[in-house]
């Protein structure tokens, strides 16, 4: 505790006075756009081409704000005798951002990488119904999704890459093993070709 009475009061005044002389931290938002950190949760964008209408996102959404309509389409068989296949076609994909609580579960559960976080945030309106955005808008927002941030230098390689690399290595090895065997039949041919 301070020994001089009123020292605490003076200290309070000093703090505010010092703050006044420093630069303010206000951001001039409408003129100066903010620099958002990567992975900002602005809005959810839809990469429509990837969507298979598996409905996982709509089912996992805690506040049921994703609306999906679809119909089945018959794809005729490519080869004669084979069965016709059916395919899901997306008719409507809408997210009600008035309900959405930006938990990101839909982005997490999507098995086909059709949903992404976009840093876009300037979609406020004065009409609550206008906050339900259809798939066209959601697809448009896809353009604002930044490229995934590079991995940390010392991070473990993603499994897909590691697998691919391993497969490639295996293939290369097989090829190498195959080559000496194949050289004998080929061998006379190439000198012959040379000559």
């Amino acid at each position, binding site marked *: 505790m301070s020994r001089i009475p009123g020292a605490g*009061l003076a200290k*309070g*005044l000093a*703090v*505010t*006075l010092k*703050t*006044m002389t*420093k630069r*303010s*931290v*206000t951001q001039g938002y409408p003129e100066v756009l903010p620099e958002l950190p990567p992975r900002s949760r602005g809005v959810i964008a839809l990469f429509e081409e990837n969507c298979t209408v598996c409905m996982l996102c709509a089912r996992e959404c805690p506040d049921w704000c994703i609306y999906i309509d679809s119909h089945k389409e018959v794809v005729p068989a490519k080869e004669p005798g084979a069965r016709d296949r059916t395919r899901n076609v997306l008719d409507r994909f809408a997210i009600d951002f008035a309900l959405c609580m930006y938990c990101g579960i839909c982005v997490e559960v999507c098995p086909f990488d059709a949903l992404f976080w976009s840093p876009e945030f300037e979609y406020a309106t004065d009409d609550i119904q206008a906050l339900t955005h259809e798939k066209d808008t959601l697809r448009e927002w896809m353009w604002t999704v930044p490229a995934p941030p590079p991995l940390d230098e010392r991070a473990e390689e993603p499994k897909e890459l590691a697998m691919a690399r391993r497969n490639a290595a295996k293939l290369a090895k097989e090829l190498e093993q195959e080559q000496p065997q194949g050289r004998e039949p080929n061998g006379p041919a190439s000198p012959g070709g040379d000559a």
Partner: protein
Amino acid sequence: MTVVEVLVRLALVLAAFLVFPLVIGQTEHKVMGHMQARVGPIYAGAFHGWAQLVADGVKFAQKEDVVPAGADRRVFRLAPAIALIPYMVVLIAIPVGSGDLVGRSIDAGVFFVLAVMGVGVLGSLMGGWASANKFSLLGSLRTAAQLMAYELPMLLAGASVAMAAGTLSLTGILGQWEWWWLPWQAVGGVVFFTAGLAELQRPPFDMPVADSEIIFGAYTEYTGLRFALFLLAEYAGILVLCALTTVLFLGGWHGPWSDDLGWLWTLLKTGVLAFVVIWLRVSYPRLREDQLQKLAWTGLIPLALAQLVLTGVVRVAIA
């Protein structure tokens, strides 16, 4: 005084009453902003938002005037005027510069000013009661309790200066003023200024309008222009308090260099005090009701009485 002169003085008082509170309000916006690491208003009027309060005024004037169904309409409507006008009347007695640079020198100066300023609280009381809202009523009760606790230290401190000068007239007090009155009346000055702040319900003494507890005290139900007038009364109150403290305790227009520049000194000192008012608002948290009462009765009043004794003894000793 000719008719023209009277009209000029009235116009000047009205102009000061309308302009300076706005200047103080705008300064408060900006100073408060920067003290909180913000920039404050920035758009209205292009240059650092200087026209913010003008824009606010225009906005207030266009807003609907809602009188609650349960309210006592006539009293409700009259209250802002009662809160506002006393401060304007007080302005006429405050000397700005040496000689005749005063609305009108009044013989009972200090006493007149303190008496008239005390009337303004009736506005808050009326507004709080007529709103038919329990938060408003609580706010106005707190206002009254605060006024009654802090009017007394103000009176005592004012009396101390009157003793020092041997006159009640504000111009007379300034005529007698010497530089060594500054340390001599310092305690009285602090008491006067603090009590004045409390009477204006400025933070840290803003218990009567504590928005986190009782919405906005007596002004909860007010909208539009009537609310704006209550706000104007608060800022006019700051002007009057700072000007009075300047005149009574800081020597008013006395200052180095020519006496012709006296009005500048008055404005400067008043401005510095107004800055202090804003500064205190930003720095301190609100006092609790019991702390308020305790500060007045066990802090300021004994201090003011001690100042009276000091003033009396010194005055008789040098006589």
